[in-house]
């Protein structure tokens, strides 16, 4: 089995577990819906720049809901010493990282798509017309989010205050992703096309590449026992 095959096996283990228990994606989803709902009360209807606020609402929902999933990513491995078993797998640590990363990527993406639908109905944004552009941005941003998120989820797993600590560690580091994703999706939602915000897309790609590489290198040290 190749490198990616091994990583996918680990990811599939997480996805299968989730399909059977359905405990995480639903809570993420509901939380994402709630963020969309709560933001609605903070925004005055008929606001002059309402169109500019919408991508911000969407990305806040993604980030807040996504971090719930990241919290579970490694702490679920704590039960029954699964983490020990995972570390005993005869594979490279980088494979374990990539496997967990793929799992998180799938969960966060699935949640985001459902939240996007909810958002499009409640905020009267026609996402169908601009779907390819939004999907591209969503995919790129989710890679960056899950790359750093998976690493920090592993960092915070053994810590008593891990839930709040993960948010404190992750949010400042995610600033470029959130900014670039919100800005480029504003271009897309205004019908200017995906490449109107070309430099923002480039930033997302750079962020993804840099932090995937850095995380793969550093993950080795995080779970060293």
């Amino acid at each position, binding site marked *: 089995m190749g490198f990616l095959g091994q990583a996918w096996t680990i990811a599939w283990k997480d996805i299968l577990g989730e399909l059977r228990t359905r405990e995480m994606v639903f809570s993420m989803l509901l939380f994402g819906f709630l963020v969309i709902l709560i933001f609605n009360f903070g925004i005055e209807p008929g606001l002059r720049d309402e169109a500019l606020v919408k991508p911000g609402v969407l990305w806040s929902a993604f980030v807040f809901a996504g971090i719930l999933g990241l919290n579970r990513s490694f702490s679920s491995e704590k039960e029954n010493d699964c983490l020990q078993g995972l570390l005993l797998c005869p594979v490279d640590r980088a494979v374990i990282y990539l496997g967990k990363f793929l799992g998180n990527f799938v969960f966060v993406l699935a949640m985001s798509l459902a939240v996007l639908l909810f958002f499009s109905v409640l905020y009267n944004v026609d996402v169908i017309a601009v779907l390819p552009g939004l999907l591209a941005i969503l995919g790129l941003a989710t890679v960056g989010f899950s790359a750093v998120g998976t690493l920090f989820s592993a960092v915070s797993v053994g810590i008593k205050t891990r839930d709040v600590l993960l948010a404190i560690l992750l949010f*400042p580091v995610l600033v*470029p992703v959130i900014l670039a994703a919100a800005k480029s999706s504003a271009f897309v939602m205004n019908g200017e096309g995906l490449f109107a915000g070309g430099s923002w897309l480039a930033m997302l790609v750079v962020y993804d590449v840099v932090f995937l590489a850095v995380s793969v290198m550093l993950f080795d040290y995080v779970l060293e026992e």
Partner: protein
Amino acid sequence: MAEEQTLKRAFAEAPPSVIERRGGRGGGRSLWVDALGASSILAILFALYLALIWAPTEAVMGDIQRLFYFHVAAAWLALGPSFGVVAACSVLYLWKKDLRFDRIASASAELGVMFTTITLVTGPIWARPIWGAYWTWDPRLTTTLVLWFIFVAYLMLRSAVDAGHKRARLSAVFGIVGWIDVPIVFMSIRWWRTIHPTVIASEGGGLAPDMRLTLFVAIGAFTLLYAYLLVVRVRQEDLATRLDRVRHQLYLR
């Protein structure tokens, strides 16, 4: 009290091997540290004189501009040496597994919080009369704020984990990721918007020679202060580690 007496008794009975390294790493006073401390105090006083009395008053902004010397010096230390030392020592720790690098990184992060806070406090005081607002979401301001959050997160992480190699590993990983992140944060916000004045541009900026000299003295003075505080803090941590070790050995016997 009881603990103190137990310790005293244990210390009296301890074999020489435990207590012989009295003058070792982190122990006692040291001439060069005192000299560093004295020179940083003198440098700060000199910088204060230059900035508050000697330097000419800025024609448009008036006296409020004098804040600038310390604002820039603190910002330089926060973004440059403080974070640079955190990142470098994080890498060195992961490579060499020497906890001393971890202690240096931690001390530097603490100073980073201090200098970032000075930057974030002096900035708005100046900005209120000059820009008409305490805060704008400019790249440098926002990056400094994000930097502050990263430093604080680093220290929060440290406070949540028990001292030792695990804490050193986890905080080193976070320190490296944070350090790589800061330039990207800066670039991203730079594309977003900017109104911050560029003081030291490649063409020399718009600074009078006297003001420039004052600025460099202030930067030098703050850098000396940073070096002194870093050394003191690291020695303190070294001593605490040694004390822990001695205590451990004494109780185990």
